[in-house]
C-alpha cells in the first residue's frame, strides 16, 4: 500500500515575516523526517500559501475559475497530481482536464520552490 500524508496546519505561522528560530526548527525537523523515511518517502513537497491558490470548479458540467483555495462544500479530497507547467495558465489548462465523476473542484496550488 501507499499512503498520502496530508499536512494541515495554521498557515499564518508560515507567512512572510515569520522567519525565526521556530520556523527554522520545523524546517530542520522536516529534513530529519525525510532522512529517516529514506526509501519509504515516495514524494512530497511544501505548498505555497492558500492566497496563491486558484480553483477550477465544475458545476453542472460547466467549468469556472476562482481566486482562492477549494471552499469545502459537499466534496472531499479524493486525490492529487503533481504537474510541471510553465505558468498558471498552463496549469489551469491541465486542471480542466482532470477527470471528475460529476461536479467537483480542482485546486491549483504552486509548490514551494527548492530552498
Amino acid at each position, binding site marked *: 500500500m501507499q499512503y498520502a500524508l496530508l499536512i494541515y496546519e495554521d498557515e499564518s505561522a508560515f507567512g512572510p515575516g515569520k522567519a525565526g528560530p521556530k520556523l527554522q526548527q520545523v524546517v530542520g525537523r522536516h529534513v530529519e523526517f525525510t532522512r529517516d523515511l529514506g526509501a519509504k518517502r515516495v514524494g512530497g513537497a511544501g505548498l505555497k500559501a492558500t*492566497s496563491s491558490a486558484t480553483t477550477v470548479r465544475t458545476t453542472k458540467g460547466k467549468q469556472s475559475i*476562482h481566486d482562492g483555495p477549494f471552499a469545502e462544500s459537499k466534496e472531499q479530497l479524493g486525490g492529487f497530481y503533481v504537474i510541471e507547467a510553465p505558468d498558471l495558465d498552463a496549469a489551469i489548462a491541465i486542471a480542466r482536464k482532470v477527470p471528475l465523476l460529476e461536479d467537483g473542484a480542482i485546486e491549483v496550488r504552486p509548490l514551494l520552490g527548492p530552498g
Partner: protein
Amino acid sequence: MSGAALERVFRSASARIVGALAARLRDLATAEDAFSEACARALEDWSVGGVPGDPAAWLYQVAMRVALDGLRRRKTHARFESQLSAQFDAQPAPAEDSTAIPDERLRLIFICCHPAVRVDARAALTLRLVCGLSTLEIARAFLVSETTMAQRLTRAKSKIAEAGVPFEVPTAQFWPERLDSVLVTIEIAYAKAHEDAAGSGPHAHFAAEMLELTQTLVHLLPTEAEPAALAAMVRFAEGRRPARVDHTGLMIPLSEQDPQLWQRSLIDDGNGYLRRALAIDPHSPRVIQAQIHAAWCARTDLQEPPPWPAVLAFYDLLLSRRDDPVVRLNRVVAAAEVRGVESALCDLQELDQALFRDFAPYHAVRAELLRRAGRREAALQAYDEALAIIGSPAERHWLMRQKESLLMNDHP
C-alpha cells in the same frame, strides 16, 4: 507646470511605463514602485531643471534605472538582472523619444484581468495600473477605506506573482474566456461611473478613463467584435448622461429623457464603433446589447415613440445567445410596454426571486409594474424594499417621488 498638470502627465504615462516595466521585470509591484519613485524624482528634478521635452521617456528611463538598482541591491535574480541590464544598455538612447517605450498595455490589461484574481480586485487593479488612478480614488469609488483598498491591491499583485500568472497576452486557446474577463472588468469599472447618474460623485472622472480604455482596447484588438461593442456602449451611455438627471437631482427614466440634451458627438462615435462591431460579428452578445443602446440613441426628440418593440426583440435575441438574470429583468421592462403590465408581472414572477433579493433595480421594476397594475399595497411595499437598498441619490429621489405619487393619488 502646475501640480495638476504634472498629475495628468504621470497619469497618462502610467499604463505605458508600468506595462513596459512589468513586461520586462515580470513583476507588477516592482514596476509600480519604480514608476512611483520616478514620479517623485520628477517632481524634484523638473521644478529645478524644467520639464523635459518628452516627459514619458524621462520617466521610463528613470523608472527602469530605479527598478534595476532595486534588483541589484536585493542581490537576488542576479542572472536575470544582468541580462536585463545588458538589454537595457544596448538600447539606442531612447531617452529622447517615448515612442521607443514598448507598448505592453494589452499585456498589462490581461494580467490585471486574469480570472485567477478576485473579480472586484481585477477592476481595482486595472483602474490603478492601466488608468493610473490613485488608491484613494479607487477606494472612494468602491466605498471602502484607502487601507482596505491598498490591501486588496497588494493581495492581488502578490497572487499574480505567487501563482505564476503569465506576463503574456494569452494564446488563442485561452482567448474567449480571458477576453471576456477583460470586458467584464471594464464593465464593472464603468458601472461604478454610471451608477452615479449626475456624474458629480467620487466616480465622476472614471467615465473619461473608460472612454479612453475602451478606445485603447479596440485599437489593440482590431479584429474582435466585443471590445468595439463595449466601446460603443460606453459612448452611448455617456452621451445620454446630460439628460439622466434634472436640475433638482431627480433621475429621468430613459424613455422620458429629452434626446435633444444628449451629446450627439459621443453617440456618433458610439455608432461608429457599433458599425465596426457589426461588421465583425453581429451575433455576439455585447454587439446585441450595443444595438439596444443604439435603438434608444436613434431617438431625436420626445415626440417620437420610444423604440420598445425593437428593444424587446433585441432582448429576446440576446437571451437566446446568453441567458442572464439581469437581461431577463430588463426584458420584463420592455415587455410591459409592448405586451402590457399584467403579462410583464407574470414574467417577473418567473424570475429567481432569491437572486434579486439585494438588487434594488428588481424591486424598483416590481414596484412600478404593481403601481401601474393598480395594486397599491403591494407596490408600496416594493418601493420600500427598493428604497431600503438603493445607493444612488438621483434614483432614490425618483423612487420617493413615485411612491409619494401613489400615496397622493389615493387621497386626493
